[in-house]
């Protein structure tokens, strides 16, 4: 039965780790300017969260091999989460 081969799992890990480092770079305070809330940082963080969680669900939790209902439920939750966060941040 086809499930993810070990190489695939390693690549998934590498991708997630890479995105983590990207998030770190985005989140680190660059320069000595005053602390400010930054829309670019916030929106990137929200986007990164959604992307990483979706990858974990699709690849590690094998949702990509699951019945369509589970795919729809998990994507629906992610969409709801994204909308909720954006609404909370922007309004």
């Amino acid at each position: 039965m086809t499930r993810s081969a070990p190489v695939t799992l390693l690549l998934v890990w590498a991708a997630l780790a890479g995105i983590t480092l990207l998030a770190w770079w985005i989140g680190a305070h660059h320069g000595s300017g005053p602390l400010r809330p930054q829309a670019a940082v916030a929106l990137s963080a929200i986007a990164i969260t959604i992307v990483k969680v979706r990858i974990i669900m699709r690849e590690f939790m094998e949702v990509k091999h699951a019945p369509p209902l589970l795919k729809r439920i998990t994507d629906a939750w992610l969409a709801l989460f994204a909308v909720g966060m954006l609404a909370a941040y922007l309004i």
Partner: protein
Amino acid sequence: MSSNSLSSAPDDSAVRGASHTHPAPVIPGQPDMWVLVMIEALTFSAYFVVYTVWYRFKPAMFLQSQAQLDLRLGVVNTLIMLTSSWSIARCVGETRAGRHRAALTYLWITAGAGVLFSVLKVNEWRTMAGQGFGFETNLFFSFYYFLTGMHLLHVLVGLIMLGVVFHQLTNPARRSRELVETGATFWHMVDFLWVIIFTLLYVMR
């Protein structure tokens, strides 16, 4: 005969009416575990929406307090969690292939990562508390301790689950692929909950 759980597919659904390269879609482990996963996902997302709303109410205080967090430690913890997810996924793969000794090795890695994460987290709290930042310091720190604390409770339950999986894997009579997969689903949830916490608590501002 009707089953009380959500699972109606037998273990080897790949054989049932499916071709070699396209196995029938199936949820690994007990589908019931996904009920827990989705409840926790919804609950944590609600917590974060509330957090964001309060951040917008008091941006200066939240910003200042958030700056006290050690981003590097957050990154390290995230990498540990991601690695533990990878290792439990490998464990499931090895279990499916019948290589139980290898599966156990990956299980140990997962458990080890979970313990390491917990130790680092408790240490982080002690450092914060040592600097004078407690749960009651301000609302940001209430959220910080609450979110990471609740998450740690999930890690601890996860370690118990891994213990159950270990108990199953070590005895040929008890081995259950379904249980290993179910435990893995739980652990991946623990991982993605942390990913949410790291990116939204430590990074988002």
